[in-house]
């Protein structure tokens, strides 16, 4: 009986630990950056990409689930935010008609923040983007 109790206690504790690690996937550094990034998202991005990141079919690509958004090519992401996008490119099997705004006035920290927000919101999960990385990327963008 004692053994059973002990076992169930371990199960409860371990499941609590598992669920804790599952729900608390966002590290504090990312969380703070995401909170700042959300404010920028609502001002600059939401009109086209929608509050839930689902985009607009055939006009504005979704960010939720987008391979580029979740991917490791941070230079590409920084370039898109700074320069906007007007190319006819296929994105995850679909084409989108609208041009994306250029945002050269956003600071390195603001770009890192909005990237952390879109890379870790909805169904997305990705590594932290730092202002230092954005600064380095910006020098490569003409």
């Amino acid at each position, binding site marked *: 009986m004692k053994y059973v109790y002990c076992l169930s206690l371990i199960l409860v504790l371990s499941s609590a630990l598992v669920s804790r690690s599952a729900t608390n996937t966002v590290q504090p550094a990312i969380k703070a950056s995401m909170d700042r990034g959300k404010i920028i998202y609502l001002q*600059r991005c939401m009109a086209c990409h*929608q509050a839930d990141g689902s985009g607009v079919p055939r*006009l504005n690509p979704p960010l939720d689930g987008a391979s580029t958004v979740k991917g490791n090519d941070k230079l590409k992401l920084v370039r898109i935010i700074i320069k906007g996008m*007007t190319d006819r490119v296929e994105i995850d099997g679909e084409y989108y008609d609208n*041009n994306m705004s250029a945002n050269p006035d956003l600071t390195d920290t603001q770009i890192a923040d909005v990237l952390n927000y879109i890379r870790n919101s909805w169904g997305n999960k990705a590594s932290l983007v730092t202002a230092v990385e954005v600064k380095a990327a910006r020098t490569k963008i003409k």
Partner: protein
Amino acid sequence: MKKMFLIFLLTSLSFVSNANDSTKVNITNQAVADADNAGLTLPSGFGALIAADNLGRARHIVATKQGGIYVKLERLVGGKGIVYLTDANKDGKMEIETSFGNYIGTGIAIKDNYLYASSNEDVFRYQLDENGKVTNPNNPQRIVKGLWDKRQHASKSIALDNAGNIYVNIGAPSNSCQEVDRTKGSKGMYPCPILDSAGGIWQFKIDQTDQGYHNGVRYATGLRNVVGLDWNQQQNKLYVTMHGRDMLYTLYPDMFDTTVSAELPSETMYAINKGDDAGWPYVYYDHFQKKKVLSPEYGGDGKKAGGEKAIDPIVAFPAHMAPNALLFYTGNQFPAKYKNGAFVAFHGSWNRSPLPQEGYYVVFIPFENGKPSGQWEVFANGFSGTEMVKNPRDAKHRPCGLTEGPDGSLYISDDVKGTIYRIVYNAK
């Protein structure tokens, strides 16, 4: 009595209602409405059925006088961009008889014995036989080529007059003609260079090959993106519905809040005379202030009027609902109030977030002598399949095209699933 019966029989067989007939015969459309009216909400006496389904991205549609329907697809299905539907057994459910055309696009129209269809750059015409079937599906005459296709607003809607001309919308590949499109702090270009090649309606001849900018006529300008257009036979005049600009808040947060940005500017309908200028990008229409307002890219502040030489809309709808099709109803099946009035298919908004989206329905506007004679009203609703569309991706169907069948039925296309709805009037 025998005569009455005969009248009844004839009317039933021809499926034509005669509004002036005082004998009050029953109108029986052989096409029976679906039990749930295809999921649509309609005015009393109307019913709906799904005439065809799962066609792909069905943009504009056109009925032949024999009752077939041509559907223009925005994405190829089996390598084809036009679907021809017929209803061989006359049960109201249509089948694909043939598909052809290796190009995507939106515009499709019929005039006399020709079918006209557009890609995002060109316009083609096909010969129709006595059954309304295309005789040359693989080698149409290319009557217009090389129009701007710069992704944004690239669809080319078409309409035809009675004097051998075709009208083609060339949408502006821009929101408000800024130096950098849709970008905060970017100035509006003056004069807007886009207007030389887009942002208007161009007129071409119906029977000449490979016309283009060099010999087309810029019939009207200052129209940002017209997707719905129709030739009004009563007035012998072109009417259009325009998609208004986006992103007042995103581009000018100091001037507009998200609510104002969701509610402005109006989506507009214009009666077009040759040479007209509707004012884009310098002004937009504000249906609350009932005036043309100077665009913020050109020194506006949300209040200053502008566009003194630009025409006024004849109808101003709420913002961003995307009027994708316009049809003047000339049939006899629907009650008299609908005769010569306008139906407009609203594709539904995306630029109202964080507020709920709007549109995703077909409206009716009564007309007299070419002018609206009453307020617009929602005619067919429920396409989205959800009470409230928060994000456009939630909508299961989006109205995009309209056509009138030879019996006076109204057909509505949907470009999400490719459903063709048929609206019939069944009241006694």
